[in-house]
């Protein structure tokens, strides 16, 4: 039912100072009760203050601004804009109202209005970096690179070393088709904030434009979702306003997906504070705690969830994984078992339980789960590789070879599967060994993907043919490649020493 909060207050206001405090209409139907209550109480409070006899215009503006913040924090953007407009009209010297209105306009897709508001805001506080960078970004969005460049010129001249500013300058240079300049700024920004993995994408594209493909691929391989923004205290205030669970959950999940687990933890804690009975808040908090390295806290949260909801499959999976990590294998197995009773088609759970059962020395049980996991496209490869490893541990080389054949027939283009197959062919006993086939396969993979693992497989195949000195050369190559990639080289060096020391090097 349509409802106008504060209607009564508005109607009876005699308004000695404020003629009437006009709160925009909005419909609270369907809102989380805590949110509806917070908005109602907050607006009633503002309205009460507005009725004070000696209210100055600036004070009334502040009340409208606060109403705007509240609406904006909960995503009622039209109402927020309306409130900010009233605030700005009453107190044109206040920076926050036109600035926050600009953000709301932008979210509403009204970019020209956003520009106008940002210009008003920047006339009041020209050095507010977040506003300046937003203005340039909107101009770029509109295709007006000239206007964006004009804005960014002042930023460039400021000589700021703030990584967020440097990143923005790099991004702008890239938009202008100036990859060298972009690289210079972006590399400085990344050096300052290495966790801002999204910048690696921009660097990758800049190097691609410069024709440096290896460097481009190197950066692109490290590209992620975490961006970087300048400090924005006005925006941070919005975050502090909300008390409901939902918004904190949404923000937490966004931070979690971006890999910012500390921030995610904070949001989920606030969601839980807003609703201590919330299972979803607790499950999410546990995940963020686990990702932050707080395993005990994560387990404690999950135990609470399972106390309330014993069939919560997400908690069962996560708790099983954490218990396994702590070495409590039997407990982890029980949890996986309960999960699979509830959700028998969960192939990821089948795969993980199989791995656990192998560790528990129960290969027959593990095999059953691996067979199920191999039936799904998503888990096939890992299940097949796990099965091969398990069969080799049992000395069932022929069966391992069969699984490798099966995996190769389904994944002929997969380097990891091909190298596993090659290594098997090179090291299998008796008639199962096919050293020439292994060498051919490993060389083919190396040509396509010159990785340390591929070089090692070539070396292994050569050793299998007793071509020891060539094998040593390839191991040296593997060690170099591993070193370049920052991988541990000790195992490869040990293998090389053994081959160098032996007359015959057949494994």
């Amino acid at each position, binding site marked *: 039912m*349509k409802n106008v909060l504060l209607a009564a207050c508005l109607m009876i206001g005699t308004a000695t100072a404020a003629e009437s405090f006009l709160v925009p*209409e*909005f*419909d609270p139907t*369907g*809102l*989380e009760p805590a*949110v509806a209550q917070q908005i109602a109480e907050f607006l009633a409070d503002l309205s009460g203050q507005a009725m004070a006899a000696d209210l100055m215009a600036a004070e009334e503006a502040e009340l409208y601004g606060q109403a705007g913040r509240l609406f904006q924090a*909960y*995503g*009622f*953007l*039209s109402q927020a804009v309306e409130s900010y407009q009233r605030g700005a009209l009453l107190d044109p010297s206040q920076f926050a109202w036109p600035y926050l209105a600009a953000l709301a306009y*932008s*979210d*509403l*897709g*009204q*970019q*020209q*209005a956003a520009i106008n508001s940002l210009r008003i805001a920047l006339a009041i506080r020209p050095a507010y970096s977040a506003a300046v960078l937003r203005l340039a970004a*909107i101009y*770029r*969005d*509109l*295709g*007006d*690179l000239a206007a964006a460049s004009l804005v960014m010129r002042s930023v460039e001249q400021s000589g700021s070393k703030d990584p967020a500013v440097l990143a923005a300058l790099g*991004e702008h240079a*890239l*938009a202008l088709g100036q990859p060298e300049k972009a690289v210079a700024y972006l590399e400085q920004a990344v050096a300052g904030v290495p966790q801002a993995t*999204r*910048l*690696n*994408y*921009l660097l*990758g*594209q800049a190097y*691609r434009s410069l024709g440096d493909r290896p460097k*481009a*691929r190197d950066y692109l391989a490290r*590209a992620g*979702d975490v*961006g970087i923004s300048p400090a924005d205290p006005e925006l941070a205030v919005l975050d502090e306003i909300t008390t*409901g*669970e*939902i*918004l904190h959950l*949404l923000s937490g*999940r966004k931070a979690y*997906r971006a890999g910012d687990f500390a921030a995610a933890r904070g949001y989920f804690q606030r969601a839980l504070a807003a609703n201590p009975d919330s299972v979803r808040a607790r499950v999410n908090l546990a995940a963020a705690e686990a990702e932050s390295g707080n395993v005990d806290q994560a387990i404690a949260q999950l135990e609470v969830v399972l106390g309330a909801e014993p069939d919560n499959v997400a908690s069962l999976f996560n708790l099983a994984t954490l218990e396994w990590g702590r070495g409590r294998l039997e407990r982890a197995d029980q949890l996986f078992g309960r999960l699979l009773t509830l959700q028998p088609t969960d192939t990821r759970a089948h795969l993980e339980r199989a791995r656990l059962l192998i560790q528990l020395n129960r290969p027959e049980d593990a095999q059953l789960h691996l067979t199920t996991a191999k039936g799904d*496209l*998503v888990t*096939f*490869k890992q299940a097949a590789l796990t099965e091969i490893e398990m069969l080799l541990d049992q000395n069932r080389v022929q069966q391992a070879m069969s699984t490798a054949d099966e995996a190769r027939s*389904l*994944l*002929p*283009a*997969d380097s990891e599967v091909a190298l596993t197959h090659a290594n098997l062919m090179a090291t299998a006993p008796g008639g199962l060994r096919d050293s020439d086939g292994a060498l051919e396969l490993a060389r083919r993979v190396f040509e396509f993907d010159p990785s340390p693992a591929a070089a090692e497989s070539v070396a292994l195949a050569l050793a299998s043919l007793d071509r020891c000195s060539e094998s040593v050369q390839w191991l040296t190559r593997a060690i170099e490649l591993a070193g370049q990639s920052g991988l541990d080289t000790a195992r490869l060096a040990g293998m090389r020493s053994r081959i160098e020391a032996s007359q015959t090097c057949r494994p």
Partner: protein
Amino acid sequence: MFGRFCYIFYDGQMRRISALCAAAAVHAAYPIHAQTLIDATDASGIEFVHQTGATGAFYFPEITGSGAGLVDWDNDGDLDAYLVQSGSVTGNSDGSPVDQLFRNDLDAGDGPGSLRFARVTEESRATVAGYGMGVAAGDIDNDGLTDLYVTQYGRNVMLRNLGGGRFADVSAESGTDIGDWSTSATFFDYDRDGWLDLFVVNYVAFSAKENPSCYAATSRRDYCGPSDFEPRPDRLLRNLGNGRFQDVTLPALGEHRAGPGLGVVATDLNQDGWLDLYVANDGEHNHLWLNHQGLRFQEDALFAGVAVNQRGVAEAGMGVAAADFDEDGDVDLFVTHLMGETNTLYRNDGDAGFLDVTAPTGLGAVSRGYTGWATRWLDLDLDGWLDLVSFNGAVRVLETQAQTGDPYPFRQRNQLFISQAGQSFVEVPAAESGALGQLASSRGAAFGDVDNDGDVDVLLNNGNDRARLLLNPRTPRRWLGLRLVSGEGDQPGAGAVLSFDRGRPQHRQVRADGSYASANDPRLLFHWTSGQQPQSLEIIWADGTRQSVGVPATGRYTTLRREP
């Protein structure tokens, strides 16, 4: 005034958008009094209301369907209509709505006024129930008759065209009855063996039994997004030529991170003569599958520059349009996205990869306020340059509409962008955009010349609303319509590229895919201006064979057959 600069319109205000645009815009900008598309639904005989089946449980599939098809399945020279129905996520029962087929009874001799469709669902025997998503079209058995593949939330359906306007369900025996949540699909001959293979795009692992509760920032209950679910892997099915398809996903694509896919096109993006695949994923990296001579595919979207936008942010890919919009000889990509993001135009720069040119071409800010679905490059103003349409509809409750008590607060207007000589685009203002200005929650749209008058019309499926037939009311003066066929059965020449020189070469590919979850007219249309003259035609068939042909009679459709 319009001769030198590009303009963009906001709230009735007009302003110049950029120096780049100004330099490029040598042609007159969009004439603001033009009508764009007219709504011809009432008189057409197409009566179809899409049903999402929404019950208030906010089941995710309710917000994603459905598509449409414009396919000449009876080979009588005009496009028939297929409209995909949804129904109930928890299961349709007897009496539930089914997909609808409409036969086009166009009498070409009498002009567009005689356009009339007749409902033929029952007699066609193509009564597809289930929760429908999309439709793809292709001749799977090389008999010259176009077959249909219907994607569903549930089991997909392959409809073999028996001729005489009748179909048979061959899903199980053909091995194409994938039971997942499929959205778009495309038929293409990836290994050049002469048989059309099938690529099926899958979305996420959703189960009505485990329907999670999701919320808007307001804390109001709302639809979930793809990140709330695990993405499902797409599937590549090889046509064995004996009525059966073999799943070759793993051997051909290898292990890869699955994406929540919605849109797809099969097209040669690196100009090596082999058809590649581009998949628009919702909120995750898009996939670019480069075809290595029909043996395997390599995913290389990130390096190519088409995985994410210019800022490195993955966007919510919905529909895809592929064509050479700037006429530089290679295929460019346009992807529609979620409200708050821009749609994205990736310009193909050959060896240098793709460049996100959304903002400099004027397509950035104008799309931020809309969630785009179906999209297509089409020459709507008949000046020879490809314009662009985006059909829009929200997936999250629009608070401004919810506040007014709208029971279906997902409605948005559609958008038309007029090409400025292939360099930039100008949006036609809402007030000038004719039937495109109607508010609806649009999803799939099929594009084709329904009345055979030489321009592209649209069959639009709107979520929880009436489907619309939108006609281009213009009368083209200089046009050429071509239908490419090959083999004894006159199979449609899917994947063939035609190069048409009218003083400057235009390249167009025979394709029925693209848009969103829809099957489009595979015929090719070319327009030119008074100062230009048709000079030559060259066909590059899907297997790489080249064939030069004389320019046939203009102002009509001509069938071009492959030389034996």
